[in-house]
């Protein structure tokens, strides 16, 4: 064994330890507390119960789950509609401009998402930048009410999550062999037919990855609906946050967390399956 071997062992163990301490242990704690009862003095107490899970099936909470999924799904769809053409053009521009454009996609990550969400308020509020601009340009005559509506929530979610859609799609478009598109045209396919029959199927791994990377965080980003939506719509993210911080019902918040985690896990599983399926189609 040389020093490389040693380094490998140490780093693998360090990562394993990190995962156990900060991923596995908290998850186990959450799972455990979801099976306990709410306490006043202590946060959780005996006895063990499935009561928390039974409460989730309540139509009220089911509604929250459904509307969260709706919001996340619609945000994902918007991100896809906006992100795909952008990623496609990005991957097809000359390499000279590509690096700078890619940099511009990534720059927002340098600032905390929370800070950027506050910045959105300044833009979207009644006397904000957007309205001032539109009024000045004469497009509208009265300020629009955007802030504290669902529209603002979508704008915020799409803005925050768009890069996660763009980057995987960009990667898959860049890998796309342009000769395949020429071959399709050569065989009689119009531009549109080429896009539907060749480009979309071959960039599907990117589309699926991007959709996952947008959809899953969109379910949990509680501060965007809070700040931009005015905390009017209760989403899973907010529900869980409130259970822990306001209602101080840790077992129920934990149960909601566990359900959310399971749903995400199932979706990730489906994702990996589909990526494996498309991988098999790629040339060896």
């Amino acid at each position, binding site marked *: 064994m040389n020093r490389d071997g040693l380094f490998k062992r140490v780093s693998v163990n360090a990562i394993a330890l990190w995962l156990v301490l900060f991923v596995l242990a908290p998850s186990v704690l959450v799972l455990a507390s979801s099976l306990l009862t709410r306490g006043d003095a202590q946060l959780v107490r005996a006895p063990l119960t499935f009561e928390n899970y039974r409460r989730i099936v309540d139509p009220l909470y089911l509604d929250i789950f459904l509307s969260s999924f709706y919001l996340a799904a619609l945000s994902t769809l918007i991100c896809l509609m906006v992100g795909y053409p952008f990623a496609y053009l990005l991957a097809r521009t000359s390499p000279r401009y590509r690096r700078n454009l890619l940099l511009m996609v990534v720059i927002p990550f340098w600032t905390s998402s929370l800070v950027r969400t506050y910045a959105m308020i300044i833009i979207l509020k009644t006397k904000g930048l957007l309205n001032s601009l539109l009024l000045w340009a004469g497009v509208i005559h009265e300020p629009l009410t955007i802030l504290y509506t669902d529209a603002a929530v979508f704008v915020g979610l799409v803005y925050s999550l768009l890069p996660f859609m763009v980057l995987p799609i960009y990667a898959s478009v860049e890998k796309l062999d342009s000769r395949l598109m020429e071959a399709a*045209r*050569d065989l009689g*396919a119009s531009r549109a037919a080429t896009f539907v029959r060749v480009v979309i199927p071959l960039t599907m791994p990117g589309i699926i990855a991007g959709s996952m990377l947008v959809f899953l965080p969109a379910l949990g980003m509680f501060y965007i609906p809070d700040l931009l939506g005015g905390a009017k719509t209760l989403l899973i993210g907010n529900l869980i946050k409130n259970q822990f911080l306001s209602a101080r019902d840790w077992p129920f918040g934990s149960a909601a967390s566990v359900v959310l985690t399971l749903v995400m896990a199932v979706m990730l599983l489906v994702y990996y399956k589909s990526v494996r399926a498309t991988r098999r189609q790629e040339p060896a």
Partner: protein
Amino acid sequence: MLLPMSDTIIELRSVSKSFGSLMALKNVELRVERGKFVTLLGPSGCGKTTLLRLLAGFDTPTSGEIFINGRSMASLPPEKRPVNTVFQSYALFPHMTVFDNVAFGPKLKGLGRKEMERQALEALEMVNLVDLAGRRPNQLSGGQQQRVAIARAVVNKPLVLLLDEPLNALDYKLRKAMQIELKQLQRKLGITFIFVTHDQEEALSMSNQVVVMNHGCIEQVGEPREIYESPRNLFVARFVGEINVLDAEVLSSNGGGVLEVALEGRKMKLHKTSNGHKANGWKAFGPGDRVHVLVRPEDLRVYRREDIEPEDASDFFPATVEEAIYKGATVDLIVSLASGGRLSASQFFNEDDDQLEFYRGEQVFLDWVQGWEVVLPHES
């Protein structure tokens, strides 16, 4: 019913293509006859692929015009052109089965499902791939992928099939087999083939017509034999096969029939032969003109001292054997002339003299069949 069809299927009128400051094609003029197997032959980077891409419609000419079947191709997108392409690296759709790859064209034509399937199967049968119809391209060997690419293109019944170095990725034996298959396929379908290669042997053996290209220009167009036997310039002469180039000076000319030249310190008469191809190469050379006399290695005859009468020695070029390479069917000799020039000569074995063994340093005498040489103006 006989339709009045022109014999010209493709016509290029002064077609140029530049990429920035690079001229990939320079004022190319070309006419291709219907139903011919035409080869574009030239070194890598000479513009062969560029020319095919202009025909297919993936790129547009910087200037000039392209006609296919009498119709201008300007502003006609690839999907509307009566041509199909077999790509250099096949470009099969990796997400489709072999069958779906081949059925891609017929599907887009909006044929009924039955007809679409019939056509795809027929094309697969033609290339013997019906058994593999359900496979994906990455589960096929290179040769099989090649066949799929061909089937996928010809199923659309194009007027012209464009093939960009389709056999490059195949090993020698498969390549030879595919050459024959392609040739047969072309005869059977009667489609015009534009076949790109940088392999002169492939070009000569497969085509009705060879288009020799260099640096974005067409150097010569002709039947394989014409290209080989009467190349128009040194580039073509050298590109289509090994050739010996001797420098000579014209002493006298009788106005076309006979040239007297000084060659390797010898006076020699070169006769214009009745061979039609050869005649094209002759120019009106005058006394004092410098010329190249070109002789193919297989046209050089090599004699031992004992094979010739001593008094005839002045009719031959004396030379020394430098290298003798046994090649199976031939012995290839490298000989050096008194002037220091080196020539190569291929001697074929035949049944009467199995004594083709030459040794290094041996003194030999050379000549060639009168009229088999090529005379070209001197190129500096």
